[in-house]
């Protein structure tokens, strides 16, 4: 007989403590590329505009140089930051950490998870990755995002957290 999908299933208890899991490496290029594309117009163009008259070079080469330097900076920064992103799920809750210079860790206790979103852009779909968004009722940490997560991991996390929330409500 098939188990009723609407009834909460008993699930194995969460481990008391778990190590930080890193993101899959294949997402690093996507993350770095995204950061480079974001920095190029916002940082590179103003820097190029300012540096041109200062260094006495023509406008177009200095703009191009500014944009190129910003893109390289974005790529390097993106690769570094991607390595630092991590997550873990244990008895205390779902935790993510990120950041190179400014390090932040966010912990959402399992009873406080409101709902979960799985977002997949076209590039993420090709690489078999997904972005998991955990929504809480808070204000600053209302949506905790974990980008470029392995699809199997993301779906397992989503079903695990949703099931745990169901179990808690049923008690």
């Amino acid at each position, binding site marked *: 007989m098939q188990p009723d999908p609407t009834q909460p299933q008993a699930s194995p208890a969460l481990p008391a403590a778990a190590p930080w899991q890193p993101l899959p490496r294949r997402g690093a290029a996507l993350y770095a590329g995204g950061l480079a594309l974001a920095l190029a117009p916002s940082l590179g163009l103003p820097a190029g505009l300012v540096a041109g008259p200062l260094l006495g070079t023509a406008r177009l080469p200095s703009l191009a140089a500014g944009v190129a330097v910003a893109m390289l900076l974005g790529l390097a920064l993106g690769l570094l930051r991607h390595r630092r992103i991590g997550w873990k799920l244990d008895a205390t809750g779902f935790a993510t950490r990120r950041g190179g210079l400014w390090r932040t860790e966010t912990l959402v206790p399992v009873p406080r998870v409101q709902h979960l979103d799985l977002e997949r852009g076209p590039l993420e779909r090709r690489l078999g990755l997904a972005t998991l968004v955990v929504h809480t*009722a808070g204000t600053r940490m209302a949506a905790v995002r974990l980008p470029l997560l392995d699809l199997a991991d993301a779906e397992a996390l989503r079903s695990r957290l949703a099931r745990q929330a169901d179990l808690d409500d049923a008690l």
Partner: protein
Amino acid sequence: MEHRLHPWSWLFVLVQQLRQFVVPLAALVFAGQRSSDDGGWALWGPLIGVGVLVVVSILQYFTYRYRIGEDAIQVRSGLFQRNQRQIPFTRIHNVALHQSLLHRLFKVAEVRLEAAGGNKPEAQMRVLGLDQALALEQLLRHHGEAPQAPTGATTGAGEALPAPAQEQLLALDTAEVVRLGLVSNRGMLVVAAGVGVLFQAFPEKAAVGMIQRFFHEAVGYAGHLDLGWLGMASATLALLGLAVFVLRLLSVALALAQYHGFRLVCTGGRLLVERGLLARARSSVSPRRIQAWFLQETLLHRWLGRRSLRIDTATGGGDNDPRKLRELAPIATPQHCDQLIARLLPGSQWPPPGWQPLPRGGAAVRLFARTLPWLALAGLALAWQFGPWAGLVLLWLPLSAYASWRQAGRLGYALDERLVAVRGGWWSRWWRFAEVDKLQALGLHRSPLDRCLGTATVWLDTAGASALWPPLRVRYLPQDQARALVEELARMLARRRQVW
């Protein structure tokens, strides 16, 4: 049976719509009168616009109906696109009644039903007759608080509900409201808003020109007086003093208009707040919907021997929405505030028996270091204008160091089974606390400076936290202490279910 809005509601909808358009319409009418070649169109255009608005308002009145069911209220509205909305009673967090002077003339009130989250109210009835509105409020409160009432006791529209016991927790007389005006900054905000409207109503060049002409005339007049620098200094000080006095007077007037007759009442398990002189507002909230608390004692509060107690609730709406219940005690003595908190948080201890202090030296250095960039900027700006006199800015440094030292002495946090609290500020003291059950997420942040010095900041997130108040966070905590705090809170939260 289906209820409809009050017959005069079309007027209030019209007034509401006109308020948005009054400045451009006035500009159009006045500007239109000057040019005579297309005077006809400029005169008829606004009138046609007003006519269209009147028709839309009347249509909105005709299509709005509501019905009170067993456990939900049904609202139907819309002419072309019909909307039907069902709002369960238990979802209604707050029933707010608002009466401006015009509403009081007609004995009507605007009713808003608010649920958790979202910026717009679930249902907005503009307007209902006053007794109808009060009856609706009482009905919703009755149903919302007693969902397990026996189903045989369904009330029809005509049955009278048992009047719940009322307990008055706080009432502000006129003297207290005047103190509230003296303590607050409302006057400055209104003047700033007035300047904004000035720039909006008149073309920018004209407004700037007016202000420049005013200052030129004032300076020219002062130059004629031939006072010498001591006279000039004392004259400017006197003018500043006059400006502050006028602003405070304006604050007092605004406080009287908004808070006259303030009453905080506990009725049937809900908190009800009524206030206002010309425009009356009533809003209520259940004590268990309170997410976080903010107790404030600025320097002015301390001089008058008062504090103010404010709350965060999870209902939506902007920070400046006057219908949102934000202030439990706009101004009250410290003992009264403590009594209120003890009454509304039974089982918790307030003030906490022991505050955990932070390492004083490190915190003082960090607080002092935060003011340095601003001082440098101010120094640069002054040096650009006044040359070497900018060195006077350095006089601020010892004052800032002393203030940082005293402030670091007051920083601290307290955690027990029910409550987590943070306190800070020396000049202007504040306490920010919440029940542990109401925490939604925890954060641990380390800036580069934190990593150098081995400290961390613990962020505690609650629902509906106001952006205007100090957030619920513990800064400059040694790293291992911070992690221990986060882990302890996480353990406590993992055991407890969410209780709305």
